[in-house]
């Protein structure tokens, strides 16, 4: 090979080698943002910093509820509903969970939440304790602002009628639930069955837990909301042995601290809510709620009968006593 040719080849090699190394060097040396985790602030400072960023907005209303599936499901159901309220009222709403060891009526009373979707039972107690104001009642799938409870047993249960429940294990939903507690109590009472007639009774905390308790065989019967009860019965998981009378349905209430103007606007937005038509597409499983068909205007007088039963069961007395205390 000639000398000139060798030099040419060598030069070409060097050029390519240099390019290769340069590209590789760039490829290997990648950089990203640097943070220093050693520099610390106190938890309080951090909290303040984070809180300041999200300072309370006077125009943000907290919305609570005591009717729970699971936090995720509840959020999925209520967040689209709150989006509607925001659009309809121009106010901002934030969904708020009530701790398990707390009650929504307390959050209403302490103005932790300004609006809440609560059952009749909760309303009665909140009315007495915190003078909450009813705005609307929910329309069920039959377009009625009332609901009922069902007493369910396992499909293979020997229980055929309520009287068969004496000496059995009975589960309620939440203590504060109208259909999960108050109405089943009324049903039992009307059929001459008291709590003491049961071998065992307990409050499971939710309609779902109540149903699970029966399905699992932990309890023999459960008093739960009619819709879920019928659905589970249709699926063959439970059997309904008794349906209650109709009582005024759950609704949405507000506390007395909410300005009247806001209250009225929100009330009107609720009355304008059309979950079956124009607002349906943004909702998630709204048909499973107790407000599946929308709302009607609510009045305190609507709950008079339930109010009396509360007295009879001593539920309000307990609240009044707590309030006096």
């Amino acid at each position, binding site marked *: 090979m000639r000398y000139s040719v060798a030099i*040419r*080849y060598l030069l*070409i*090699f060097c050029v*390519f*080698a240099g*390019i*290769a*190394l340069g*590209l*590789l060097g760039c*490829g*290997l040396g*990648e*950089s*990203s*943002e*640097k*943070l*220093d*985790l*050693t*520099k*610390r*602030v*106190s*938890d309080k*400072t*951090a*909290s303040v*910093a*984070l*809180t300041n*960023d*999200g300072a309370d907005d006077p125009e943000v209303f907290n919305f609570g509820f005591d009717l729970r599936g699971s*936090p*995720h499901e509840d*959020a*999925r159901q209520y*967040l689209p509903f709150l989006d509607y309220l925001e659009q309809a009222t121009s106010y901002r709403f*934030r*969904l*708020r*969970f*009530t*701790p*398990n*060891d*707390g009650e929504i009526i307390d959050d209403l009373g302490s103005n932790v939440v300004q609006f809440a979707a609560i059952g009749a039972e909760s309303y009665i107690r909140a009315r007495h304790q915190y003078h909450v104001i009813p705005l609307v009642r929910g329309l069920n799938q039959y377009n009625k602002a009332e609901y009922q409870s069902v007493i369910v047993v396992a499909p293979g249960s020997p229980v055929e009628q309520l009287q068969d429940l004496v000496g059995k294990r009975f589960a309620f939903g939440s203590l504060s639930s109208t259909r999960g507690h108050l109405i089943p109590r009324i049903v039992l009472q009307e059929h001459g069955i008291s709590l003491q007639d049961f071998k065992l009774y307990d409050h499971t905390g939710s309609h779902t837990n109540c149903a699970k308790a029966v399905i699992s065989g932990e309890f023999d019967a459960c008093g739960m909301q009619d819709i879920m009860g019928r659905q589970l019965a249709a699926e063959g998981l439970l059997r309904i042995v008794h349906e209650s009378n109709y009582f005024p349905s759950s609704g949405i209430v507000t506390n007395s601290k909410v300005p009247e103007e806001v209250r009225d606007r929100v009330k009107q937005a609720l009355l304008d809510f059309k979950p079956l038509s124009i607002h349906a597409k943004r909702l998630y499983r709204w048909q499973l709620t107790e407000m599946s068909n929308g709302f009607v205007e609510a009045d305190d007088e609507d709950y008079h009968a339930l109010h009396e039963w509360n007295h009879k069961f001593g539920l309000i007395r307990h609240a009044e006593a707590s309030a006096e205390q």
Partner: protein
Amino acid sequence: MKLSTRILLLIAGVALFQGVVIVLWGGSLMHKSLHDELSERVSVIGKSAGEAVVDRVIDGDALSVNEILRELKTANENIEYVYITDFDGNMFAHSFKNGFPRDLIALTQKASASEGEMLDRYAVAASEIIHASHPLIEGMDARIHVGINNQDAIKQLSSIRYQMAGVAILAVVMSFFAGIYLSRRVTRPLSRLVALLRYYGRGVAVAPFLVDVKSGGQEVVELNVAFKEMLSERLRSEASMQRLSMALEQSGDAVTITDRDGIIEYVNPAFEKITGYSKREAVGKSHQIVNSGQHEPEFFARLWQTILSGEVFSEVFINRRKDGSHYYEEKTITPIKDATGGIRDIVSSGRDVTERLEDQEHLQYLAHHDALTALPNRALFSDRLNHALAQMREVDDNLAVLFLDLDRFKIINDTLGHGIGDEVLRVLAERLKDCVREGDTIARLGGDEFAILIQGIKTANHAAPIAQKILDSLVQPFELDDRELYITTSIGISLAPMDGDDAQSLLKHADIAMYRAKDLGRNTYQFYSQSMSDAALERLTLETDLRHALEREEFRLYYQPQVNLNSGEITGIEALLRWQHPELGLVEPVEFIPILEETGLIVQVGEWVLRSACIQAKRWQKLYESPLRVAVNLSGRQFSGHELSATLRNILHEAQLDPHLLEVEITESTVMRDDRRTMEVFNTLSELGVGIAIDDFGTGYSSLGYLKRFPIDTLKIDRSFIRDISTDPDDAAIVSAIIALADSLNLRVIAEGVETEAQNAFLCDQGCQTIQGYLFSRPMPADQLEQLLVTPPGSVSDANRVGRKTDNARIH
């Protein structure tokens, strides 16, 4: 750049590219994969941890959540930290032991502001942290934030990347050397082939051979083979091109190649020779340099339209040479198309056909003109006549057609020769031109026939003067070859539209009128009339019937006796031809004899007459045992025919008739037409022993000297002299003279047409021996004549007389 260098650069470049791509991309892929895996992992950790603590967060149980977070961190050594913000966005719990990293506050705020999961990556000291933030409940502000340390993975990844880089560099180096080797393997044989091509390009005769190219691979081998084939093909193409080029250069046709716009790109030597333009003068110029301007614009428009449509154009062009002269070129122009079908060039090939076309023009001229007189011929005349007729219809005018036939022109040709005859025709043509207007047409139809077209006349009165002028122009003799020739013509005139509206009819009618003019004595003109056509038609009918009359045995011989004036004895009989037409009855000889003569049938019929007369004479001879001479008229055709003597001999032999009993009668005018020929025939007849009589004596131009020499036996005085001998002293004197002449020459004399006693008496006084006429007997059939033959001799006045009807017919 050398191919070897290119190959090397290409291979090395590709290898480098591949190496870099593999390293970078591979590294990037691995990094991404690792990152995704870690992200997925931290996401899962965050979700599962979030599920575990969401209720506690709802319940506000920060202490238990802290505990859970710390346990989570402990259980996963890669987890650098985990913390939770509540539903209000506040710090709820974290895994840090001493405070909360300040730098994470911003990150937390960023996460809180986002919706859904957020993943981020940042460097911490020598490590890398993947930070994941998940909402505890979708749509709500409570979040769990997890940070996972990426350091180990990064170290591992870097190690792999360095290894890959090393391999890539090694591959580049190996590719580099492979490239050197390969390029040299390929380019060296190619260089040899290039050298071969250069040799070939210099014109060196290179024998295609297979260079040592195997080292270059199969493709190079194939290239070498292809090169050899290409070389051979090129040699063949060059040879073909050379032949084509020579053909173009040596072709006798002018070849021009132009581009699509007509700019000359090539001309061959023939073009130079024909046009006078050299190749250098022509190439680069427009094809229009040879335009003569003789063609209409439409011609060239048609030319270009044809060529541009891809078709071939062939025509005769009138071009112009460099010196300005014109020439005819028979040219074919062909568009040359390229692969797409578009016209690339135009090739024209043509030859100088000037001479040929001029010859054709000359032939065209000759085809329409008479070569002798330069006058239009029959075809051109008919064409002009038709044209004139069409014009006549448009302008409502008349025209006249004059048909000229020279009188007795055949005599001039026969006697003086065709040279003189042609000169007569030429001079006549010139005289005719002086008789007509410039727009009139004179044509020579053929022979001695001419036709003249006179346009724009109103009546026959306008045509007659022209005809008279023509006749007057011929009064002056034709002085040719030291001779003076007097020519006359007969003219027939037809007028359009009265006598016909087409050329054929007008010419025919003019021809008929011309014949009428001839019948009236020639040297005159006649206008056509329908009766002429009728007469012509009748004549034509007779002619047709005559042609069949002989075979149909329609002819009859009538016999008229010749009587001795003194004894009253029948000394001879003249046979006279009659025609018994089946429809017309007995047709007078004056009507059909001329037709026989004109058609030439007279020869056959004349022979029949001779034969029949001789046979009849022989019969009478046997019957009556007395020699009875029979006289038969000979026509001029028979007389001049060369078969006459042989015919007579045969007939006489056939009839077994003594030749002395046959006398042939020839008119004086026939005899005197050609005295030398007459002498030959007379000698022949005389040798045969046949008698000779001169018929119609006195009407011709007999020379007494010839009369003395001719072996004549009889003179027959024409009836025209006999008719008035008793009243006209001149006729009487002529008759007396003839009788005396005959007597002096010792010739027998017969007077024809004797019809009266006075005539008879005169003739007797003058010493005429024999008479023939109605006074004694009219012509009659043989059986009737036999009655006379048995009549005893006596006075002629006692003979049967059949009336005064004069028989002027003769067989001439």
